[in-house]
């Protein structure tokens, strides 16, 4: 077997294990299933009446792009938690004592989590359709929207791997979730149009890739808030391209860096 072939086979064996874990631990999936549904219901029915969408339209439909984006960013925790668990329970030693390339442990987890990231997208779509969200654009535009979600899901996995190499326990991962990632998804166009935010926050929100992803999705689905202001700053004028740039940059920076950090963190 060539080493590339071995890498692919081993990655898939470890990914299959990860998928079985996901299937057999439905409670660990709440961040990808129940949580986004609760957010959709909570924001559309509790805050929905108080927020007006620029250009008019239904807040529920505006909200969907935001919660899609937020849920995808949260996807980084799936892989971080899985890695942290494997580290605390010693599973990692078993894999590292096998004649496989060490990077297959990370690639296997990544593939499993890429497949996992389909779950919230499906759940969200179903919930959205149930509460009255509709795609008003062409099939191809919508398809591009879903493609963008998938690409960004892959990118954030590497943020998760990096996270798992910086902290080692599942509790610490959760701590970072609330202190860092949670605010990032809030200071964005997730729930409210960025134009309503005050000074500095507005600038942060406009350059926040979560906003760009949310805005792209609104545009691709023909939802309220999806109109593109062509004379605005780059992230607002080209949200799709800006999101893709971020996705590529995250992978280019985080993937190699997290592999190095991860190898170092497990050396002791």
């Amino acid at each position, binding site marked *: *077997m060539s080493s590339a072939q*071995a890498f692919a086979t081993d990655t898939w064996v470890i990914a299959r294990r990860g998928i*079985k874990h996901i299937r057999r631990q439905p409670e660990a999936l709440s961040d990808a299933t129940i949580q986004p549904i609760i957010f959709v219901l909570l924001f559309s029915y509790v805050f929905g009446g108080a927020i007006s969408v620029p250009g008019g339209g239904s807040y529920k439909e505006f909200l969907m792009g935001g919660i899609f984006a937020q849920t995808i960013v949260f996807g980084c925790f799936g892989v971080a938690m899985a890695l942290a668990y494997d580290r605390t*329970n*010693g599973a990692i030693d*078993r894999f590292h*004592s*096998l004649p496989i390339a060490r990077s297959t442990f990370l690639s296997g987890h990544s593939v499993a989590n890429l497949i996992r990231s389909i779950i919230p997208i499906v759940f969200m779509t179903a919930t959205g359709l149930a509460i009255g969200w509709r795609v008003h654009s062409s099939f191809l535009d919508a398809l591009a929207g879903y493609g963008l979600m998938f690409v960004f899901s892959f990118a954030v996995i590497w943020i998760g791997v990096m996270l798992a190499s910086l902290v080692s326990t599942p509790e610490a991962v959760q701590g970072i979730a609330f202190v860092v990632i949670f605010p990032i998804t809030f200071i964005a166009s997730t729930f409210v149009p960025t134009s309503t935010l005050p000074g500095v926050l507005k600038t942060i929100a406009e350059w926040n890739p979560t906003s760009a992803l949310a805005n792209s999705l609104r545009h691709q689905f023909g939802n309220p808030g999806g109109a593109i202001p062509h004379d605005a700053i780059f992230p607002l004028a080209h949200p799709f391209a800006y999101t893709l740039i971020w996705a590529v940059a995250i992978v280019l920076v985080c993937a190699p860096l997290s592999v190095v950090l991860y190898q170092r963190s497990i*050396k002791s």
Partner: protein
Amino acid sequence: MNDSTTPLAIEAYGLVKRYGPKAALDGVDLDVARGSVCALLGPNGAGKTTAVRVLTTLTEPDAGTARVAGHDIATDPLEVRRSIGLAAQDATVDGLLTGHENLAMIGELHHMGRKRALTRADELLAQFSLTDARDKLAKDYSGGMRRRLDLAATLVATPELLFLDEPTTGLDPRARNDLWDVLESLVDEGVTILLTTQYLEEADRLADDIVVVDHGHVIARGDARSLKRQAGGDHLHVICARREDVEAVAAIVGRFASGRPSTDDRAVTAPAEGGVQAIAQLAQALAEEDIELEDLGLRQPTLDDAFLTLTGAPAESFDDEEVAA
């Protein structure tokens, strides 16, 4: 170079591993002959697990070299891992996979092909009496079953060398005995085993060679008998019926002993060189003083005594007596 005719399964020289200022391994040499069982014996924190981690390529030493199964751990880690099986300290079977899935996955990662991996998993389940639990999630296994599955997992690719880090810690006496039987049958098949243990009984029962480690150093090595010899020779051992006689008895024992007697509650112990002669004289002397005794005898040193002498601290021991039964 891979010289498969070398009689040594493990040869390590001057292994050093530091964690911060503390040296977990401080210049450890180790030779383990092919087909033998070597026990690394030592208290918690002695460096046993670190030694296993270095030799199994899980961690790199700060100094020193080692060849494991004929392969250099620094330059040829993949070949080392192909030749060994490791059962880490807490049985690292995957709780969310079934017993069969656990073993099949490892077979696949050894590149034996999916089909072969599946049948190999069934063979091992049968060998370790786990066939009934084949499709149960490993998290629902008992402690003994998990250990057996863990051990089976190390054998998937029929390695020539097994590393078992405290294989019976946390097991009840019956499960421990079962596991010892399994290990003995593996040894009969010619597998080389390096195991770590805090339990002298375990080292005594399983190992050909015992390497005593403490604070990252090897402080003694040899078979069980030679280690016992290092603890000194025979001991006179007297238990008084009444506590108030202990001082008087200690004084009398001192006349026939080769060293200072020590007392513990109603017991008096002292090293003796005279053997049977000494005990006969002691018995007579005690009879003349008309002291009532509960027990009088000549005791062989145990591995416990050896451990105490070598490390200056008593070894941990099984609480339950059933183990020896």
